[in-house]
């Protein structure tokens, strides 16, 4: 339960409690403005009845032909609003927009290989690993196995235009590519 509304430029003054989280990066303002000026319909926040932002999602549409798809660039929920189903709502929102507004074949996203909680969650939403991308992320400095800390999974879920599920595969975890091979 929450208020789902557009993510706007002035929300950058109010997203601290979400962004001061290890997994969430605060980018330069041109990053956010770049998304808002191209895919405003793929950026949304959920807020509490009192108007506090609980989390946000930012996405974009890219690729041509059967590669046309929605991409989840950032999805983040403040720690105190986790376990409330916000991520599911964001993802179904983005899937709907990718399907209806952009006629995409699938939605994809990247996640750190060590972020197991997030991986399980996305699997629960119908996503599966399509490939492992080497050194996709910066090191977090946690001193863990650097391979796991820096590698990311590319996870995908087919949309209504892909009823034969051609955009996903079962053995994705075994397929590794380097970061410069992905967009």
């Amino acid at each position: 339960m929450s208020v789902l509304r557009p993510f706007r430029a002035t929300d950058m003054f109010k997203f601290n409690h979400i962004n001061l989280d290890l997994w969430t990066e605060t980018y330069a303002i041109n990053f956010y403005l770049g998304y808002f000026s191209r895919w405003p319909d793929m950026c949304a926040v959920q807020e509490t009845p009192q108007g506090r932002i609980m989390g946000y999602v930012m996405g974009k549409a890219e690729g041509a032909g059967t590669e046309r798809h929605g991409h989840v660039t950032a999805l983040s929920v403040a720690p105190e609003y986790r376990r409330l189903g916000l991520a599911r709502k964001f993802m179904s929102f983005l899937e709907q927009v990718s399907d209806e507004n952009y006629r995409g074949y699938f939605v994809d996203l990247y996640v750190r290989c060590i972020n197991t909680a997030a991986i399980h969650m996305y699997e629960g939403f119908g996503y599966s690993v399509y490939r492992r991308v080497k050194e996709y992320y910066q090191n977090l400095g946690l001193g863990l196995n650097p391979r796991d800390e820096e590698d990311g999974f590319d996870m995908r879920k087919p949309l209504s235009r892909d009823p034969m599920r051609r955009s996903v595969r079962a053995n994705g975890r075994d397929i590794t590519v380097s970061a410069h091979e992905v967009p």
Partner: protein
Amino acid sequence: MDRQIRPIYEALDTGSNKSAILACNKVLKKQPNNLLVKALKALALVRSQKVEEALVLCDEVLASKPADDPTLAAMMHVLRGLGRHMDMVTMYEDAYKQQPGNEELGTQTFFANVRIGNWKAAQQIATKMHKQFQDDHYLYWSVMSALLQAHDPSTPEALRTVLLKLAHRLISSSATPSFYNADRFHLHVNVLKELGLYDEAFEMVESETGKVVCSSNLACDELRREIWKLKGLTKEAGERAEKRILEAKDRNWLEFLAVLDGTFADLTSQPSDVEAAKAAVSERIVKAREFFGKIVEIDGMKDRSGHLALLELEKRARHHGLATDSAALNSSLEHYFQSFGGKACCYEDLKPYIELEGDELARWTAMLENQPATFASLSDIWRYINAQKLLRYNLSAADLTPEAETKRAVQYLDAYLDGLKLGKDLPSYDLQPADDLAILSAQAFVNIWKQTGDEAFLCNAAALLEYAIARSKMSYQIRLHLIRIYRLLGAPSLALEHYRSINVKQVQNDTLSHFILSRASTFSLSSIGDLTYTSECLESSRIYLSNSEETAEFIVRAFGSEKYSQIPDFIEFEDRLDNSLQRDLVKMEHVRMRIAHEPINSELVDMELIELKFIFDRVHHDNRDFDILANYQPRSVASFNQQTQFLEKTPGLGWLWVFLKIYIKAFQLASDLDDTVEDKLLIGDRPKPSYDPETKIPLNERLAMRKQEEINELTPDESLFYDYASALSQWLTPYHDYTRPPPSAVLAEAAKITEQKTGHPLKGLEISADAATNGHAKKDEEPPAVVEPPAQITQYFDDMLKRFKEVLEGKGLPHELLHLVTLTQEAFLLFVIETTRFKTPSVIKVNKLGALAQHIKEIRAKASAVLAEISSALVSYAEQEATAERRKEVVQACKPIIHESGLDHDFVLNVAKKITDARKQITDGVGKGLVRVCKTHA
């Protein structure tokens, strides 16, 4: 040709500005009039900070009215780098005039106007382009520009409707319907809304195509809801929402609010027959209760909406005096707690509904007190945490005796330590589920400190939070608490360490830097050459530069990609960041630190004067995030944020205004610049004029205004400082005015320096021969008679010495001590700024101001003596801080929280050492700095 130009571009692209300049010079030797190369050289110069040289080239290129794309593009970057957006508009307008058939030039001219927010011109260009090139998007550009012009504060009221009507006429003339594109549709509905044409707007959003657009575009859907409201369709919206909730399973809280608003619509729409309306609403309440009850049944614990809607329904029913079942609120609360007490958000959800009294409070409290402190699962611990927070919220003042609060603090802490077991296997980067119990304990201790003034309780809070942060390294909340507490304890280096660990970045600098930079000059050691805080100010201010360089480009891009719904927000964002209150509070602190470190010369004085005067004309926005600091204090006392403010006063606009007045006045006296000179020396555009009527009053009158609401934001010592500063500037003004060299002489000097630097004379300046003397020209009138300095000046330093001794003996907290010491030093520096002119013997002699020089000498001697005395007292205070006895005292004070193991004696001793060392460092440094400052300005 290409062969010669390419290396220049390559050098520029790779950031090797030096080799770009060399490559340009090579070409210019053979073709001295090559405009493109001149423009590129100007760009390389701008990027290597050689502004004066760049200006010369830039003006040459502009004067020859370039019209080719590469030169224009290069010049666009040059002008942007110099902040000369007005010149960019002129440049493109001229080029477009030369080639009216060039669509790209038209577009660039439009964009140049967009960058500076010149909507009137933008609208005219877009209209012209639409006629000429017949592309629909130009039409929408002109509609958007008209709408923005209508909203611009500079647009007169009467003109606004005219502009909106124009926008309406334009959009209605579009060849293609607006619903083909969600953002055009949004713009269209918006224009109708602004004109109050709600029926037409309603028709649009409820048409078949309109519904489709709104269903997959949140911005349009938001507008749709607004139109329903504006049309007064509250009841209908409620009915529609019921359907969405039931049939489409929509759990957007806005739908539930629509049902609630619909329920009470008869009463909220100012009915003529109140009794009848009440009866109707009573019936609707029953229905709504049934409806939400049904949703609760369907959703169970899957969703909170139905449950929360029942609470909101009860609250509103009570508000209108229509509550029927007195136990309903209690049972809804209990039900909610039972269902969602295990979620972190429960406290926040329930807070609006628990301001209970009497029996209701007793029933609620009893229920919460029954929550056991046994934690087998995550839900258990959250249930306990929520119960404690909810109980605490309703504690009355009588419940908050130091004894009772200490008992609570210890209880929270014990539960915390117990709760740690639940998260013992979590990875080191995860948050501990028990964290909030440590925070509750710390807040209870801070509350006792606030009542008793005994710093021992702050030490308890600090030590237990240090223990908690070691177990939950990523908890920004714990760190923010520590920052606040360490500043109160006078341990700024520890506060800064925690602030840096939070890793504040980008735009967060604007909203969060107040935690560390508010009144930062109190904790700065710039006087002894430690520039930590000075550079922190500069670091945190970089975001404002990226904003002014980049945000306007995205307004341009949003036009380019026709995302009209975003443009007003981009403009607001740019304005709020550009005119951020925090930006200028930090600027002020930076100035205060700077003068304690740098030589006070005309370079510093002139530059700061110009900058502070710009700030004085701004309309500020307060973007600071205070809400981020959790508050678990009872509603009967101040919030944690308020309790931990620096000396109970958070600097705001009033504070900024006072300090601006003080410093502008001081720099104005010290400077030789007057407005005519300033205009000639300014490089970029002047900021847009403010719409605040007060800025129209002459500067000197504004500077002299004293407003109580501004003074209210000052601490008592700042208030004394303000009085002193006002008296000082008033006393010295006539002597400065008499001695200051005439503007022509100042300009001549500036021209001489520019010519030395660039080899070119200062542009647009003709210097009359007689002005080029040394500034000591004979004056016609007699010098003003020297009067005795007022007591506010001569007494100030003695008074501050007395204050210092009081606070020192009264065992005030170190931050209080540092506050008044740094202000006394600042008073001395202000005196230095305002008397430097009279240090030159020839000035005194020529102007016959010997008596003044004598007064100045006496005051300086007095001030130096006081500062020396404070200095030695502070240095010996520092010595006492870093002793084993002091550490032992701190450990003793922390007895309530010391445990057998873990949070044990050794751990606390370690924290005590860190605190006392940090205190020693700052008090010793500030103390020694006093002497250093006196010596520098002896």
